[in-house]
């Protein structure tokens, strides 16, 4: 019974108002309504510790995965790992908050798959238009005023495509299996 839930601190006010029996019945009805409001439907592991921690951690997870994506070319990392990390973060949020989390964001994860594949394929085809074989990558150094020497590669676009596909795959599978209760 979530009447013992410490979240419902404002219940004391409610209870202090109602004194008579009729009001107690009304109160219990109101209690139910309040419980239901506080109890999200289909709502994962609704643990306060987990929720708070994950709300903070998700930012780090997302930033780290983006870093790993971009840094993959010269340091350990790359599209696969970044994608898995993002998926891991989303899974963490899904575990904590449950189906409302997914429903509210309303992102169609299946869409990531063709977009990612197009990135990868497009990188490959771009070489064809310039007369080189399929999947010929190009890279170049661009000196920027503030950042210094910046290296651009077409492989990064490819990697981004891989990133999207991995996110799409993991999240499609997990969200579909999870939703189907």
């Amino acid at each position, binding site marked *: 019974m979530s009447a013992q839930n410490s979240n419902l601190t404002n219940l004391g006010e409610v209870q202090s108002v109602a004194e008579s029996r009729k009001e107690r019945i009304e109160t219990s009805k109101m209690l139910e309504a309040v419980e239901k409001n506080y109890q999200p439907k289909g709502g994962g592991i609704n643990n306060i510790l987990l929720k708070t921690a994950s709300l903070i951690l998700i930012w780090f997870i997302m930033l780290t995965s983006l870093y790993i994506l971009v840094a993959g070319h010269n340091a350990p990392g*790359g599209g696969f*790992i970044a994608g*898995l990390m993002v998926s891991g973060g989303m*899974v963490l949020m899904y575990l904590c908050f449950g189906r409302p989390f997914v429903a509210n964001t309303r992102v169609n994860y299946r869409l990531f798959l063709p977009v990612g594949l197009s990135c990868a394929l497009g990188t490959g085809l771009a070489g064809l238009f310039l007369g080189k074989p399929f999947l010929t990558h190009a*890279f170049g150094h661009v000196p920027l005023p503030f950042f210094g020497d910046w290296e651009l*590669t077409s*492989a990064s676009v490819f990697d981004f*495509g891989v990133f999207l596909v991995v996110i799409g795959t993991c999240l499609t599978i997990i969200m579909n299996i999870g939703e189907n209760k």
Partner: protein
Amino acid sequence: MLLGLVLLPFAAAFLMPLLYKMLRTKLGWVATLVPLSLFVSFLSLLPRVNAGEQIATSVAWIPWLGVDLAVRLDGLSLLFVLLISGIGTAVMIYSIFYLHHHERLGNFYTFIMLFMGAMLGVCTSTNLVCMYLFWELTSVSSFLLIGFWYEKDNPRLGAQKALLLTMGGGFCILAAILLMQNVAGSLNIDDLLAASDVLHASPLYPIIVVLLLIGAFVKSAQVPLHIWLPTAMEAPTPISCYLHSATMVKAGIYLIARMTPILGGTILWGGIITVVGLTSLTFGSLMAIRQFDMKGILAYSTISQLGLIISLFGFGTEAAIAAGLFHLLNHSAFKGSLFLMTGIVDHQTGTRDVRLLKGLAKVMPITALIACIGSFSMAGLPPFSGFLSKELFLEAAAEAHASNLAFMGDLAYLIPFVAVVASIFTFVYSVALFFKIFIGKQVTTTSPKYPKETGWGMLLPALCLVSLNIIVAVAPQVFVDNLISGAIYSVTRAEYHLHIAFWHGITPAFIMTCIVILLGLVVYFNYDWVKNLFLSYKSRIGAESAYQTFLHGLPEVAAKFTNWHINGKLSDYMALTVSGALLFILGTMIHYNAWSHIDISDLAPVDVLEISLAVVASLAALGVCLFKRRIWAILALSVVGFCVSFYFVIMRAPDLALTQLMVETISTVLYLLVLYKLPYGMIADNPPMPNSRRTINAILGVLVGFMAFTVTMLGQGCKLFESIAWYYNENALPLAGGNNIVNVTLVDFRGFDTMGEITVLSLAAIGVFVMIKLGREHLYDRHGMQHDHEGATAFNDSGNDTVVIQTDTYFQDDDFPISPL
């Protein structure tokens, strides 16, 4: 030019659907132009071929296999193509008036064109594979035409039976052709002719002969492979006339005739063909007495007459072969006209049942005339051409003991006896076909429609065909000299002059004819008693029951086998797959003694940390197998995964370690999510697994581990090539601009593989999505077939759903609807 003529019907077949859209019911007139033009062209080529000119075309098709698209017109081919195009014209004109306008005329004419082209190809090909191609095309078009009214059950079943049997025969022919190529080295008929000694001497000769003859007998509906012809009568009557009496079933005879100079002349050849031919002759004529359906009578009559022709080819003498070819011509003439007559009767009265028809000559005089001439010719009565060819047959049968059938010794004296008996019954049913239906006191009132004479559209083709009987009888020598002698030369490679006359004197053949007519009349006047006698014969064994057993039994056996090993249990599939892999890989390893090749001399040193990690991972893996609750098993599995990632850390592979960690985390979460759906309880109880099965699983697991171990050690020790790692080490930075070799390899050097991997990932995700979200129930009948109901009702060809006969149309056996043998 010849190739153009042969391929013309194919081109017409392509155009037919379009023309149907434009012309609708007028399509038949345009379609008739094709066989008409073919007939006229071939007639114009007749003098040139008889003068000895070679009209041939050859187009190289698959040169390195020896297959050419080669056609040639010689005497035998010319006879056949004139038959095909001539009867084709008649049938086309007939079908314009026969088929209702609401039938699928586009399909009909397309298939007939297809057939015509294929049959022309069969009869003119000089390359055996080319001939086989056209042969199978005739089977396919016959299938399409038999099943023309596919809404009813019987045409479908009949078409299926025809296709299965003729295709089976076709495979036998293909095997024979390939064996001949193997022995003689060529697929061309001329080369094979030159190499016929080699063929005769080869040990494969009996197999070649048997296979070839099986194919020819299936096509020509000889016993015991005749069962498809009666049920092929479900086709529209023009088709029955064209394919199943006048042309397609003669393809078997054509093949035998073509192969006679190459493979013939031996005891095996002559013996098999004679026996089968005479059996079919007798069987067909006896069975025809039993039939109630006119087309049934004619179907069995076709079997019988083809048996006659084939047995003449079996006798082997030049006289016999000449008689066979002459009878081929006459048979097409009278049988074709009789089929057309049947169609007219059916169209006008609504039934084909001979029990219901009587005295039609009063209202349908011309049809009666056609029937009279046709059936008398079939019976072998003078003054028609059937008499001439029957005489020749009886003469050849009487001479048979002196021919190359001399090996049969005294049995050869049986042949004329058999011939006479069969001829008696041929006489009986032919004469009954005319008299019982057309002659009588009053016109029948038991048929569905009141009969009246039909229009000239249907009568004219039938009259043309039947008049051929008379024309050939009037001037037989003309036909023989122009048509038949060329064919005789193609088959026997000797100049033989066939002399035909009505009166040869009191020869044995004449005496036999007189006996046939006398005894035939005796039997005919006791017709009902004889018919009832034959109908009382019921049998359970035979070719038809064998076919039905095969048709229903094979899917059942297959279904049983499938049910045995595809039983829905994933663990069984896994066990089977793993056993197969073990068999191949471990078997190969044992065969080559792989363990002697393991070289552990340059392994890196192993320290305590790695050993302890290995122990932990092994214990966790063991735990996966042995834990009873699922959640422990899942967690143990993730322990294994994390140990592996720890290994990657130790081996200084940060990319791999990161990837492994992430994958492990996510897959553990996935397992736990799925855990909610699995039934609660111990793993081993859902479903309960017997200990024997667990032991087998354990053994398989140990063997797989052993196999993996061996593979790894072998890979370590047998370094055949330099490692490619140094290439990537040196070239990652200059060529791809990146320091992280792993990542650079993934996206740049091996980008194509990565693209394949992400495609597979997408497919997996879509697959999971489809299975879960759009999961549908699919019920399928394992056995996949329904038993066809016995005693299906019969329909006549005009498309009227008049139920005439309650049991199967052609046979009166209530227990066993199709022929008893």
